[in-house]
């Protein structure tokens, strides 16, 4: 907490007065978590009930009519401050009709947007594609290691939380089409959080979104980059780390009308993995669909179905999946105590498919306040 206050004091004392227009806002949330007693990474605190908190701060600095400095910090109960967003944004760069952003920010992949924050998330957690750690790490591993890691949550996610990465982006609108092109240090599955580019090749990202009518947007994103960010183990062959790429693509839809909000997303990712005897392409497919309905003022219900599927890996005559297929259902109710305060009660059930696995569940009571 002292560190948070120190950062706040520093920002407000030295940085804020430098700008003619500075806005500080944020949100705080406190949570009670009770999960099943399993060894799964979906269990929280080994199944012992626990409290937690989270603080997000947003600082907008307007340098001139088209130049902005944007900062987000995110802090959990461990009191470690994450600088998710430290970016310089230039609108209508040199009157060319597009915008430019550089620094650390959320890469234009997927449509999670503001739903990453507790007051905008209908439920508690993020979809599996954003949260679940697969059995594939961003370093050299053997087939056996990957299979042993199944269900242990030690590898990369499909989409690394909010995809905050260090890079640059050009974006804009052309009629009803929105476009964004970006390059970053890390990959979509393994952002280079606070680190320089490990392999010398950037992650290349393209996103297009089309809004034919108000309230309905379809989008697609694609990215490719070398994914071996951790090269502490040497490669089994002399191909060079740049040869081992992640190719990832996604499609998404966003719909809202009256009291209904709907979001869906499907992601396909392929990695070329330097196993001990050969290079092997493995893939994972993830999806989710979520909806919220406001029954009457203050009160809503929401639900999400989220899943992951993995390809098979040849190993001595058998072909197990390289991680366990999962399906997760999260449902809950929310009640606005006032305009800025939201209390949610959420239940999450996670099941492993095809093989026997832990039956995970999580019950959450969360209070969120924006300011």
């Amino acid at each position, binding site marked *: 907490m002292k560190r948070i206050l120190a950062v706040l004091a520093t920002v407000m004392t030295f940085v804020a007065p430098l700008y003619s*227009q500075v*806005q500080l*806002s944020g949100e705080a949330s406190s949570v009670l978590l009770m999960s099943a007693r399993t060894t799964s990474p979906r269990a929280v605190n080994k199944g012992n009930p626990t409290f937690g908190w989270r603080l997000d701060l*947003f600082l*907008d*600095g*307007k340098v001139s009519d*088209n130049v*902005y400095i*944007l900062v*987000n910090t995110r802090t959990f109960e461990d009191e470690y401050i994450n600088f998710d*967003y430290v970016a310089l*944004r230039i*609108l*209508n760069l040199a009157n060319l009709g597009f*915008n430019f*952003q550089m620094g650390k*920010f*959320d890469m*234009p992949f*997927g*449509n*999670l*947007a*503001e739903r990453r924050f507790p007051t905008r998330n209908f439920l508690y957690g993020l979809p599996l594609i954003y949260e679940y750690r697969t059995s594939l790490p961003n370093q050299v591993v053997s087939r056996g290691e990957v299979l042993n890691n199944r269900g242990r949550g030690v590898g990369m996610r499909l989409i690394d939380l909010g995809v905050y990465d260090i890079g640059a*982006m050009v*974006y*804009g*609108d052309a009629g*009803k*089409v*929105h476009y*964004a092109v970006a390059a970053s240090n890390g990959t979509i599955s393994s952002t280079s959080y606070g680190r320089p580019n490990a392999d010398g090749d950037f992650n290349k990202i393209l*996103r297009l*979104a089309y*809004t034919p*009518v*108000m*309230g309905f*947007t379809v*989008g697609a994103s694609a990215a490719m980059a070398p994914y071996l960010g951790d090269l502490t183990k040497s490669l089994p062959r002399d191909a060079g780390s740049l040869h081992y790429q992640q190719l990832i693509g996604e499609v998404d839809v*966003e719909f*809202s*009308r*009256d*009291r209904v*909000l709907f979001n869906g997303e499907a992601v396909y990712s392929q990695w070329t993995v330097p196993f001990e005897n050969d290079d092997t392409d493995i893939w994972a497919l993830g999806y989710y669909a979520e909806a919220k309905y*406001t029954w*009457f*003022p*203050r009160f809503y219900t929401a639900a999400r179905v989220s899943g992951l599927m993995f390809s098979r890996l040849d190993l001595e005559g058998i072909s197990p999946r390289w991680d366990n297929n999962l399906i997760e259902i999260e449902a809950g109710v929310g009640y*606005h105590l*006032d*305009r800025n305060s939201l209390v949610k009660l959420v239940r999450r059930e996670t099941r492993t498919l095809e093989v026997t696995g832990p039956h995970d569940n999580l019950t959450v009571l969360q209070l969120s306040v*924006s300011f």
Partner: protein
Amino acid sequence: MMNVRRRTMWPSLLILIALWAHSGSPLFAQESSRAGEIRGKITITKNEDDLQKPPTVDRYSTHRLAPAGPSGSAPSPSAMRLSEKAVVYLESESIKVQSFVPPTAHPILDQRDLTFHPQVLPIVVGTTVDFPNRDILFHNVFSYSQPKEFDLGRYPTGESRSIRFDRPGVIRVYCDIHSHMNATILVLENPYFAVPDDQGSFVIKNVPSGAYTAKLWYGRELVGSQSAVIRNGEAVIVNFNY
């Protein structure tokens, strides 16, 4: 026996009707020569906050079509004039118990340029307000104020929703999508209120004789209050400085 009672009731009934008319019934007040008016001028000297100041920039507009202007730029709310954010209204114990017929026309609380227009909307109890969306994006108008909680959901350009307000009080109105948007609906117990012109001049006409408290609502709050007595249809001057 019945005939005797009927005869003795008529004078009492006539006296009651006369008293009712004298007390300021709108039915009579509109035509009564005793109805006066309160006029005056509002002078705002206080440095005002931008009442619907938008966020500097939309961080996550990089994922979708920007609502207006260059992607991610701050929306540009249209200027708010004094006539859109100030209201003078009268309160009186003597007219509190009366019921007034609400207007059949529906006042409008506009959603335009990512801003509510007007900032303050005065209505009399029982009035229905229309909420048209004139922006090229969704709004979700709602209020959690006690006199009337509502949530209009999301609707596009050209569509409108309506709400009838049956209880007096202050209704704080917001947009669920654009957190900077806010407005106030003052649901008043009588029709004796006025919206000033942009120079601050106002007139409340056809006010029955009696003692009143004139109140100035400016922006989000009540900022002034003065006593005023109307006698024999005279005009009373009430000025506000804030």
